[in-house]
């Protein structure tokens, strides 16, 4: 009885979300991939626009046509004109796609080309996005919203706030994940925040704050027949006031009664019907902890981070179903994709609890505020599944991968004032609660300070109580089995147990005691069981392969065949700075090849924002930890043929030696070789043996030794402390003062904590070698060059492939050295080497025997799938070298980085040796300029129309930028320059308006004022040296540019390349061409 769907839809355009950024990350790769899959199933041809080249959705086989172009109205219109799609999907690419779609609708482009919006109508989207319309719409059905007033100026905001009464919350309309929003306790704070928010959005909302209320979300689905379901509800551990993206979240809700739950559920359905969503939306509530009073916070008329989480939490494929509903299906037409028998019109019943925990990387930034609040700062998240709250929170805290072992048993964090730290939460809040409980704070007291529901706190207290009980014992033999079992049921790791029992002995040989606990508990039969996620709490039989492990159970859901036909692929864990969607692409491609080659593909990963954790992607998915303990638990049950740990980034790679010691069959390059490349001393000795050059370095333990070494190599030097007090882990120091300051403030030098000091070579090119070798012989490779000189982290650099400006001799030497290294380490699998090149001298900086960040980029530009080849190699299948012509490209790929500084209040947006970008794009063009322009516009840069502010650093950098300055002048741009730069430009015959630094406060015009006045629409601010300072002039200018949403470039080489590109290539000349036509 299938419904007649819209058969006129033969070709659909899907808008992606672009580069990963804070507030908009990998979840949209997942939702977009699902939507594409749904279209494919219907035989509809698909066109995808997404410049994020590292995503799974932009891979072969997902969409029929892929455009690596910016998701902006200009480019999307061009693609529409070329492709003439019948329909467009706006709900699967986050706020970026939604905003772009609304603009295309408003400007009449969709109508002009006859493109039908599938799913939720645009009017409904606008009703939810525009705050005023939204409140009006919900008023019509007597649904309470947060009382807010829309204003468009600072004085109006003040008036509104005084009317509502402080504290108030300020939000920018049409903004991603709370961008530019925050709480204000007084007028001063309000003025500062409103000004900033108005720079992002013409409309700002001032609302009464409901700090301390519960925050609850519902994921709601509706078909065009008005059938509605709520797939999942979720409750924030952190009360209102902390952005849901910054909150620990559990599903289902834990502290709501049946009446509460269904009251809010009913309202959610009433809302979705009234707004007229077709597909999926989420409804966020503030809920009074003392009554059934509520406010609707917002409705997202699109797939969201929460919907991705809900899909993973329940096994209900929201994006897939939403896409089908967009085509006109009814929910009753679709099947539950887990049971394959029962209807998709149902609400999942969970027989487990999930807990999402955000991952922050604030330590990577200079000057950033650590407080968490109404604006999102986290860069990734994890989801833990278990059968008690204690179990999931402890699992989750290990998964976030910041050196924590769970809720207890961690290195104690230094908290000066616990009360304050509880009341004003930072990224460390959960560990502050642990400290408070350890210090004897009562649940009531913590509740009073944090407003976190007591239920969660009681549960956390249970963990602390158990850890105290464990500490009463000093040997495993004395430890009662019941207590050990209880600890495991509460999510304690073997390490936590070992630390409680063996105490200070642990320091000497943690691994030994760890294994002792493991063996002991296995002897007692205390082992986890594997359970399925089947959407119906075991009510119906399900052939589901979606699994997790728990100690709260006595029976496995899976019968293992022990046929050694499984290949386990270890995933990448939480997205973080330095490891994100690119490793998901690698993982997914490894799984696909494993399956294609006739093995059972098994995935272990715990990141809900990924495609690799879509249970459709493999034969078995363990949504669980990537710790040694848990991986071993799974391998014990799964008894696979082997394990692939070289496609998920550093987390799985780090397990190599320990797994090898337990006799695990690591496929590909051996653990010993991995160790030889990872261990700085061993690797260095090997290079010396091979006669390969490297920057001079030494591991040192005292100031005297450091100074002696610097006398030898000279400044600047790269300093890497092994123990970090605060701030970033690495720094370049240009003079003794900087060195002294960095070592005293940020690092600790001692015998226990040595510092690695390396010679830093200035104005050197950085070159990447990505390759796959088999038995020590390179099979495929890609050499790419950085546009910036060395000193910008390779994850932040703009990368060009194939290289356009390398000497043939340099290329030859790089190939030779790479072959030598591949042979010496007998590499079988993926690897990456980073080189420095100056003239034709090359030096090796580092070598990783795993897939690198740039694998998807080079694979897609070259159209040779490196992971497919690497996986075959690891499976022992002989691989042929591709024909030499395959490396001869008549186009260029540029990979550019996406930064999220606008979300990181106070952070200095300057690039250095530590990575700070949150995402990347990769675009293809006929030459560098075209590819660069596409790429830079994809990461949010705009071609300036008015004026450009130049302050271009040192004399050398000023000279480097002279050509670019000429080009700007010739193009008729008005140039503003700070004193030194102004002088330099003048001397070289380029007219410029002199503006003054913030420190020259009495002089006019002020650079900052010009930024505020929107006279400037591009800022090039190049710091003189590589040491970031928090309070300097440069910092203020850079920060102002970010806060006022003015494009900013801080690297002379990149700025020159970008300026050259937009001065020589008119926008209209950019070619609109899909990937397959290059």
């Amino acid at each position, binding site marked *: 009885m299938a419904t007649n769907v819209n058969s006129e839809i033969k070709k659909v355009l899907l808008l992606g979300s672009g580069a990963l950024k804070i507030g908009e990350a990998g979840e949209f790769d997942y939702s977009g991939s699902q939507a594409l899959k749904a279209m494919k199933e219907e035989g509809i041809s698909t066109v995808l626009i997404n410049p994020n080249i590292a995503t799974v959705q932009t891979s072969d086989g997902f969409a029929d046509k892929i455009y690596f172009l910016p998701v902006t109205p200009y480019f999307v219109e061009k693609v529409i004109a070329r492709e003439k799609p019948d329909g467009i999907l706006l709900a699967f690419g986050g706020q970026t796609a939604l905003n772009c779609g609304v603009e295309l609708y408003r400007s009449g482009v969709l109508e002009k080309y006859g493109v039908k919006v599938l799913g939720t109508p645009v009017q409904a989207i606008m009703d939810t996005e525009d705050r005023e319309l939204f409140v009006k719409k919900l008023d019509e059905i007597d649904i309470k919203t947060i009382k807010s007033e829309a204003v468009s100026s600072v004085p109006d905001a003040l008036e509104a706030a005084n009317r509502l009464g402080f504290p108030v919350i300020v939000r920018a309309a049409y903004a991603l994940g709370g961008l530019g929003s925050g709480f204000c306790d007084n007028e001063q704070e309000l003025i500062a925040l409103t000004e900033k928010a108005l720079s992002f959005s013409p409309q700002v909302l001032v609302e009464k704050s409901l700090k301390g209320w519960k925050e609850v979300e519902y994921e709601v689905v509706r078909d065009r027949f008005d059938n509605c379901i709520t797939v999942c509800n979720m409750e924030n551990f952190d009360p209102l006031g902390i952005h849901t993206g910054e909150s620990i979240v559990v599903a289902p809700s834990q*502290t709501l009664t049946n009446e509460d739950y269904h009251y809010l559920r009913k309202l959610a359905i009433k809302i979705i019907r009234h707004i007229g969503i077709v597909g999926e939306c989420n409804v966020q509530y503030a809920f009074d902890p003392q009554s059934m009073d509520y406010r609707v916070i917002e409705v997202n008329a699109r797939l969201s981070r929460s919907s991705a989480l809900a899909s993973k939490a329940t096994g209900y494929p929201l994006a897939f179903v939403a896409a089908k509903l967009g085509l006109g299906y009814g929910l*009753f037409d679709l099947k539950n994709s887990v049971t394959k028998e029962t209807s998709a019109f149902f*609400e999942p019943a969970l027989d487990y609890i999930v807990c999402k925990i955000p991952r922050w990387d604030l330590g990577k930034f200079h000057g950033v505020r650590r407080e968490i609040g109404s604006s999102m700062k986290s860069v990734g998240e994890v989801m833990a599944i278990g*059968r008690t709250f204690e179990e999931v929170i402890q699992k989750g805290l290990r998964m976030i991968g910041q050196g924590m072992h769970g809720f207890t048993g961690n290195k104690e964090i230094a908290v000066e004032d616990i009360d304050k730290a509880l009341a004003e939460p930072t990224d460390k809040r959960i560990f502050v609660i642990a400290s408070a409980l350890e210090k004897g704070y009562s649940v009531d007291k913590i509740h009073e300070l944090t407003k976190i529901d007591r239920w969660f706190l009681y549960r956390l207290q249970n963990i602390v109580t158990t850890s105290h009980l464990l500490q009463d014992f000093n040997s495993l033999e004395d430890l009662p089995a019941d207590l050990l079992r209880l600890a495991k049921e509460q999510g304690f790791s073997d390490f936590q147990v070992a630390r409680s029992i063996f105490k200070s002995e642990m320091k000497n040989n943690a691994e030994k005691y760890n294994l002792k606990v493991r063996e002991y508990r296995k002897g007692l039969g205390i082992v986890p069981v594997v359970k399925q996620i089947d959407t119906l709490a075991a*009510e119906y039989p399900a052939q589901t392969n979606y699994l997790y492990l728990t100690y709260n159970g006595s029976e496995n859901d899976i019968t293992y065949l022990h046929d050694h036909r499984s290949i386990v692929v270890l995933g990448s864990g939480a997205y973080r700075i330095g490891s994100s969607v690119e490793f998901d692409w690698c993982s997914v491609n490894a799984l696909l090849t494993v399956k294609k080659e006739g093995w059972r593909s098994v995935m272990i990963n715990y990141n809900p924002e990924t495609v690799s954790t879509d249970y459709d992607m493999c034969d078995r998915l363990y949504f669980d930890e990537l710790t040694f303990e848990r991986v071993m638990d799974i391998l014990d049950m799964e008894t696979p043929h082997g394990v692939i740990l070289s496609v998920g980034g550093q987390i799985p790679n780090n397990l190599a030696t320990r797994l090898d010691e337990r006799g695990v069959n690591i496929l590909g390059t051996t653990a010993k070789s991995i160790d030889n490349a990872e261990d700085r001393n061993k690797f260095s000795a090997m290079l010396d043996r091979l006669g390969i050059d490297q920057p001079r370095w030494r591991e040192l333990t005292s100031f005297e030794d450091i100074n002696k070494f610097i006398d030898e190599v000279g400044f600047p030097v790269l300093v890497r402390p092994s123990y970090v007090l605060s701030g970033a882990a690495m720094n370049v120091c240009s003079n003794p003062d900087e060195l002294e300051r960095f070592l005293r403030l940020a690092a600790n030098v001692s015998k226990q904590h040595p510092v690695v000091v390396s010679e830093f070579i200035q104005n050197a090119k950085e070159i990447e070698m990505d390759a796959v070798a088999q038995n020590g012989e390179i099979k495929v490779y890609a050499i790419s060059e950085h546009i910036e000189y060395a000193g910008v982290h390779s994850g932040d650099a703009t990368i060009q492939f194939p290289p356009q400006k390398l000497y043939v001799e340099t290329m030859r030497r790089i190939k030779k050295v790479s072959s030598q290294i591949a042979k010496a380490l007998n590499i079988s699998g993926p690897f990456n080497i980073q080189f420095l090149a100056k003239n034709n001298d090359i030096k090796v900086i580092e070598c990783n025997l795993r897939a690198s960040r740039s694998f998807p980029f080079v694979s897609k530009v070259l159209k040779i799938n490196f992971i497919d080849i690497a996986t075959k190699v690891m499976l022992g299948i002989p691989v042929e070298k591709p024909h030499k012509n395959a490396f001869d490209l008549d186009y260029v790929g540029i990979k550019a980085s996406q930064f999220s500084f606008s979300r990181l209040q106070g952070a200095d947006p300057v690039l250095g040796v530590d990575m700070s970008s949150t995402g990347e794009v990769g675009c293809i063009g006929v030459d560098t300029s075209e590819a660069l322009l596409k790429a830079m516009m994809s990461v949010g840069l705009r071609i300036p129309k008015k004026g450009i502010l130049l302050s271009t650093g040192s004399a050398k950098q000023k000279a480097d930028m002279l050509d670019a300055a000429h080009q700007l002048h010739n193009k008729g741009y008005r140039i503003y320059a700070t004193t030194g730069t102004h002088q330099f430009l003048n001397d070289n015959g380029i007219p410029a308006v002199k503006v003054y630094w913030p420190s020259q406060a009495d002089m006019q015009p002020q650079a900052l004022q010009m930024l505020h006045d929107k006279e400037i629409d591009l800022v090039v601010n190049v710091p003189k040296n590589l040491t970031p300072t928090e309070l300097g002039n440069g910092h203020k200018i850079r920060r102002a540019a970010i806060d006022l949403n003015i494009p900013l470039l801080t690297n002379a080489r990149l700025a020159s390349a970008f300026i050259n590109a937009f001065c020589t290539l008119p926008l209209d000349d950019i070619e609109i061409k899909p990937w397959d036509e290059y």
Partner: protein
Amino acid sequence: MQNTKRATLILEDGTRFEGKSFGYEASTAGEVVFNTAMTGYPESLTDPSYEGQILVTTYPLLGNYGVPPKREKDDVSEYYESDHIHARAIIAQDYSFDHSHWQADRSLAQWLQEEKIPGIYGIDTRALTKHLREKGSMLGKIIVEGCDDVEFYDPNKENLVAKVSTDKVHEFGSGDKTVVLVDCGVKHNIIRCLVRRGVKVVLVPWDYDFNTIPYDGLFISNGPGNPDMAEKTVENIRKAMTTGKPICGICMGNQLLSKAAGAKTYKLKYGHRSHNQPVRKVGTDNCFVTSQNHGYAVDSTTLPQEWEPMFVNMNDGTNEGIRHKTKPYFSAQFHPEASSGPKDTEFIFDDFIKLL
């Protein structure tokens, strides 16, 4: 660590599950059934349809929000579905010894102790549920450490409807129209739902011949056990059908109305007990998520000519309601009064009231 006694669940096929006691410390027996709802333990425990049953919650955490006060509002329980716990015991994976909710005035453990009902946690309820799903609902007993053994007890051999029904006639609410509500084990929310719609409700015992009193509409409540035991109610319904006055039924009411119409009922392998049963209104595109709690079902194929199925279960195709083709008689197998569960089908009450 909680100081708890061991408690063992023994099923009639000999399967044993070891757990820990958190409720009243006594042994008990009944029919073991599972419910996949994630909320609503106070409502479920006081639902008379659970009479004689041991309730297994598949959702692993239990007791989080405590228990609301036991008090009446407008002559019915304010928060419960009857005035006491009907289930014989409750079994979960994990019990929350600390609770938190503004409405709670005690913990679930305290309540169970007051009402002398055992509770066990620490049992793999997913494994237990899979066992019941594969083997069907079965009898079981709970033996608490240090307490006497008990015999297995099969509630379906008893007339449970008679056991839980009121023995007197009660009146609730006021209005121009009078609805006779036959108490086969009525959930208080059915009374609340009717009264809220401005009618006078006359609650009568299951075997009361309501044909002797004046009324405008007849409503047959939910109730526990085997519908074959309530033959007297069926006879009274048959008599009422001669008057042509509107009749509506819920759950047991659906089964009794079907029987009165001439159809047959049968026992499901393991029943429907959850908040997420999808139901489609026959002949339409309208689907509803419903709350359910029943072990017996109507065999749609045995419905006489003048009757037809009104709702059907979208998962297993079982009957979810019937209606007369011409007369104002209809009923639902699911629970439009919810409590616990989704409230999407409350319109059934409106439809009934409109007919009066």
